């Protein structure tokens, strides 16, 4: 097994708001090994983006971050700004959801990629920088790279802009790429193109990739290992096939059961029911308890911690009986 590149331990994020604190991330342990693709899935407000933004030092000033995140042995939480700046865009590349707001509208895309190179390799000659820019645009399969370098972001389509973002992210041969909903704003045929570009790049450079998404279909296609987040916690994690076929958490099972699928028709969708808890008014026990069909008394009192059950790790008191109990209930309904 490859060496661990990124490791978070008990990572937490709180946002100070009037009248209290929003607990956006509550003790997250995530490992990313060299060369692997790690998926982080969850719905809005599950803390999947905040986790990654926290370790990159990119959260708003009202955020309080605690715990640990080490990259190659370097502690990132509380690290000096210069150190984080050197990592971001250098050894860690980032791709965000909306390329239009992430790109500077008054600079050509070539200039912006060049900037990303110059910041991290200040001694590189301008000619070499521009040659590298063109090479990067070719790597992300932008046609007529030498011409498109001179284009402004608004002159490019959404898919092309996202390719530019990816080119910037990989400009300095990062060991880790963090992609936060990289295809959410894109149409499905363009999404397929971008996922192909990311997969090609990853296998070519052997960098690790963390892909944050709400789309279980995307995760099924690209991830080696998956973390499912709910209300600021990882509630289940495991290798991708284990997580899809032998999951143990009622939330994971519920998510898969409520998804309509391209390849099946006439199956009844089973909504999870209810809504996630408010992050400033979390229940004492398990955060999923109010929506859980198999909750027991202890679930109301004690917040479950991640533990190994079968081939996955799961934060559920009832596992491994939880999903079989859900199945049995389903059989009774039918």
């Amino acid at each position: 097994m490859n060496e661990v590149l990124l490791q978070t331990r008990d990572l937490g994020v709180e946002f100070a708001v009037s009248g209290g604190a929003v607990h956006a991330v509550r003790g997250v342990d995530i490992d990313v090994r060299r060369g692997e693709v790690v998926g982080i899935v969850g719905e809005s407000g599950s803390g999947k983006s905040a986790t990654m933004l926290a370790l990159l030092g990119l959260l708003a000033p009202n955020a309080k971050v605690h715990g640990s995140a080490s990259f190659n042995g370097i502690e990132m939480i509380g690290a000096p700004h210069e150190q984080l700046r050197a990592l971001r865009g250098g050894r860690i590349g980032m791709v965000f959801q909306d390329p239009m707001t992430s790109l500077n509208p008054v600079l050509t895309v070539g200039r912006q990629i060049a900037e990303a190179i110059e910041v991290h390799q200040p001694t590189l000659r301008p000619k070499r920088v521009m040659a590298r820019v063109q090479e990067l645009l070719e790597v992300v399969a932008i046609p007529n790279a030498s011409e498109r370098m001179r284009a402004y972001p608004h002159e490019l389509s959404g898919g092309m802009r996202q390719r530019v973002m990816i080119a910037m992210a990989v400009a300095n041969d990062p060991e880790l790429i963090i992609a936060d909903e990289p295809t959410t704003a894109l149409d499905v045929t363009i999404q397929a193109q971008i996922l192909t570009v990311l997969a090609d790049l990853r296998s070519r450079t052997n960098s690790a990739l963390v892909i944050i998404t709400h789309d279980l279909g995307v995760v099924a296609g690209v991830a080696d290992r998956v973390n499912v987040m709910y209300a600021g916690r990882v509630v289940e994690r495991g290798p991708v096939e284990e997580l899809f076929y032998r999951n143990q958490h009622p939330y994971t099972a519920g998510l898969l059961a409520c998804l309509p699928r391209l390849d099946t028709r006439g199956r009844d969708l089973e909504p999870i029911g209810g809504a996630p808890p408010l992050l400033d008014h979390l229940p004492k026990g398990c955060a999923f308890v109010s929506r859980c069909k198999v909750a027991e008394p202890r679930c109301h009192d004690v917040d479950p911690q991640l533990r190994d059950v079968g081939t996955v790790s799961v934060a559920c008191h009832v596992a491994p009986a939880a999903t079989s109990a859900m199945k049995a209930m389903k059989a009774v309904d039918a």
Partner: protein
Amino acid sequence: MTDLTQAAAQPLLKVRDLVKSFPVRSSGFRGGRGLVHAVAGVSFDLHQGQTLSLVGESGCGKSTTARCVVRILDPTSGQVEFDGVDLGTLDAAALRSARSKFQMVFQDPQASLNPRMTVGEILAEPLKIHHIPGAEGRERIRELMSLVQLRSADLDRYPHQFSGGQRQRIGIVRALVLEPKLIALDEPVSALDVSIQAEIIRLLERLRDQLGLSYLFIAHDLSVVRHLSEHVAVMYLGKIVESGTNDEVYEQSAHPYTQALLAAAPIPDPLIERSRDRIVLAGDPPSPIDPPSGCHFRTRCWKAQDRCAEEAPVLADPGIGHLVACHFPEVSNVIVQQPVDFRRPT
């Protein structure tokens, strides 16, 4: 279509050669005026009690088509016949009263509900416009609220006090309050998280069956469309490129664009997802201001020949039982059939 008696009956909605163009200024400092052909000749039928989905990517004209049908937009040309009446021939007053029979639900329930009105006021608005007496209206609202599982007490609250899923329920009640026959649903679940999405989809199915509604469903999510509709029409750059029953379009698609769309839509199942044949289309859709000659899809099509640039293919049945607009149609199932169980045995 599926049923002979139904096919013989008059469709509830009949759309013929619908065209909608918008004037735009072309690029450049003194650019001349141009036209975007958002909808470039679309025809379809929708029968009572059925759901027809228009699918396609951004800019394909699916929302504009729906907006022309419910007359939020006036079509540039073409006919929209609702319940046997050509809406284009109606004057403003007649159109207003006809409109109570076709309503719309919008994508973003946050933006489509007035934040300064209570839910009760929002729901009473259509009744006021259509002069439905207060007592009768209140009764209807109460019934519908319970039908979508909202409480009567919720009528005194404001939209921001509800979750996204609840707001979409309010949007649905507003559309239902005039007892319409047809509802145009424009991406009604795409702003919602998956666990909430399933509830709204179930609700829409239940309402359709209980109230005998017909849906014109606009969506880009092919999995949701698969689940919810009897008939599907795939649009590309203002035109329908393929249409048929749900199974025909999903399992026997013949248009290369349909096949590319289906192949690109992910399936949440790693073994299936990783064994599928990928069709990755090159490039982006061309601009609708200056669409390619002949077949609009030919610039991204791997089968394109000279003929495709010269002659626009007509939407017709090439002997496969459903309609395709392609010079070289070939039936293929690009999604793999799988058992229904979501947790496969170990």
